[in-house]
């Protein structure tokens, strides 16, 4: 399948921790979605009590693991991959809405120091900086409901916390659907998946990367 295009070259894109983090999150998110919607009362799979226990445990696990990710993203400078930009955003949007059907090449190929295209940058920033923290914080509050007075949160409303948490769950589920689809848009259906497993991604062999794509230098 791969390798038929002579312009492709293999680059090592995802470090081991990144891949571990990605797949760990995959497992955690799937478990949380399944158990979360069971706790919501949508279906009966594990049984309510088990679903609650699994959801609580996995949620707390994610929260702790996420702190390690935050540490990693800042100490490695990888946070720069998430700095949003509008440059070529339109081109990327145009590509997915039009160019992709015409067989055009991606306007922003992946590079070791520019893993994300402008749409990914904004999406992942929103995800990692807003949606996931909101989901974790509301989840933590939900889980700690009985400790609110001790935490000085007596004024909090469980209804509001639950509502935000549910809205967040829908947002994450929507993200998962689109994400699962988008990973099939590499030069082969499984190219992106392979990259996230092995770390190696085949990319267009271009000599230069435009300046803006390179990690933003700290001012």
């Amino acid at each position: 399948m791969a390798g038929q295009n002579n312009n492709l070259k293999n680059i090592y894109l995802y470090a081991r921790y990144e891949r571990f983090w990605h797949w760990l999150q995959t497992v955690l998110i799937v478990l949380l979605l399944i158990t979360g919607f069971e706790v919501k009362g949508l279906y009966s799979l594990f049984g309510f009590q088990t679903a609650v226990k699994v959801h609580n445990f996995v949620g707390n696990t994610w929260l702790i693991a996420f702190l390690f990710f935050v540490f990693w993203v800042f100490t490695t400078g990888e946070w720069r991959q998430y700095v949003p930009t509008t440059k070529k955003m339109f081109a990327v949007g145009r590509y997915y809405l039009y160019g992709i059907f015409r067989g055009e090449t991606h306007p922003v190929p992946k590079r070791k120091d520019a893993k994300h295209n402008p749409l990914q940058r904004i999406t992942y920033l929103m995800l990692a900086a807003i949606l996931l923290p909101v989901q974790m914080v509301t989840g933590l509050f939900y889980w700690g409901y009985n400790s609110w007075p001790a935490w000085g949160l007596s004024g909090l409303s469980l209804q509001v916390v639950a509502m935000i948490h549910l809205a967040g769950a829908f947002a994450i589920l929507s993200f998962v659907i689109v994400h699962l689809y988008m990973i099939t848009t590499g030069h082969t259906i499984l190219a992106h998946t392979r990259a996230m497993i092995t770390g190696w991604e085949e990319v267009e062999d271009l000599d230069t990367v435009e300046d803006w794509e390179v990690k933003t230098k700290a001012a």
Partner: protein
Amino acid sequence: MKMLKTRKLMNAGLALGLLLAWSLVAHAATSTAEQAPGRTMAQQATRDKQLWITADHSKHEVLQQTFTSGPEVTRACLSCHSEAAKQFHKTIHWTWLDPNVAPEERVGKAGLSINNFCIALHGSYPRCTSCHAGYGWKDMSFDFSDQTKVDCLVCHEQTGTYKKFPAGAGNPAPKTMVFKGNNKTYHPPEWNKVAQSVGRPTRKNCGTCHFFGGGGDGVKHGDMDSSLMKPSKELDVHMGIDGKNFDCVRCHTTDLHRIAGRTYATPAATERKSLVEDDTIAKITCESCHTDTPHKPGSKPNDHTDKVACQSCHIPEFARVNPTKMWWDWSRAGQKKDGKPFKKKGELGKPVYFTLKGDMAWAKNVKPQYYWYNGSITAITANDMVDPGQPVQINMPVGSQDDPSSRISPFKVHRGKQPYDKVNKTLLIPHLFGKKGSGAYWADWDWKQALESGSSKAGTKFSGEFDFVETAYVFPITHMVAPKEKTLGCTECHSGTDSRLAHLKGFYMPARDTFKVIDFAGWGVVLACLAGVLIHALGRIFTKGNGRKEN
């Protein structure tokens, strides 16, 4: 190179190790389940079933004399237990009045409190007062200060042969007699035998009255009936004779003849304390022995004890052996067959029609109804105005979700129809039991006369115009605690379709409640995403755009 590899392995190991450590921390809390010290104390106290009082009453000379009546026995008791009658006179068992309300308000059975069973005792004294722990309360003239009128035996005798005559105003049958109400023969007690047998009250002593409240087995409470005389552990995990075999007084602890647990306006326990915190408290609440964190440390049920009473989950259904009465329609009373009163039995072997009483409905394995409850029950009396336009709530648990001392608690709700005054808008007290010509409904079959007679005896107003109104009466459910395997599962309440707490509004409960707007919008976005990627994928397939490269 080798060093580098080792370090990489260590890094991976560290990540896994942290996760493992977290999971251990999370589970360590649940594996050290210890039993509450109060529970251990209760078990120790009940392990030894031997006589634990220091006297053998059959050896007391004073009890070997010839007795011919109850008061004579009482006099003998008082010759040693000098303060007993004075103590007892202050208790609700004697006064039948709420001790915490001014006597002129007449709250209590002896006052103007009303239920939707036989309604009130005025005019039917000798029948109702057959459950009074006294001798001879046959009318208003009863002398409540007479110490010899206290019936020590009904609570303390242990032969099981002592019976009060059902229409004897608290007296046993003076000679062998048949009670027409049940066609049973009643004999006078063997006074010496019963007097010498006295001891601490057992289930049978208490049950003689309390299992038969409302005039028959299981009529009133739902969680108390004759099945608790010798219950299985399955029926009551504490009282089960194949289990801990608790007597009533194991929890209904007694202080100078005041027995813990009666609930009128004043809660049975005002503080939530366990024996671990204070060993002088009455063991009347579950928490007295089990504490407020009785489940495995860190487990979710412990998080419920602030808002949900233990009974709500641990008594999944009441009346699990004998049926209990759920409906009593007095307006249908009085129909006769061949000019005579008749009874018609229903499926559960209990009367569903009785000329004296009207229509009745019984049920077994009843799911309780749940209310916020702070231990206090408010009730109306025969003087209170009611709204006959809707079912009248005769009594009601007090509490709300905003009250920190309220918890969601289970209740039996007994409904029925009973007479009310159309002009004064009050519930009426009928004279039911009595001789022909006395005005008693069960003798003369005339509601108006019965209501006039009852009202005049009770000292309440009656305009002469009456009709029947639907009423409801609640009983807290607290007995018949099931073994833990039978505890309610989460989804009995945490369910959007058939939650037992569906009617309790005003607070959010996971799974029971949801957010329609978020659901609608959420599923809308999810479906839009699915549709979007599907259309996009079809587009790619048909244009052979992406994935165009032959493979």
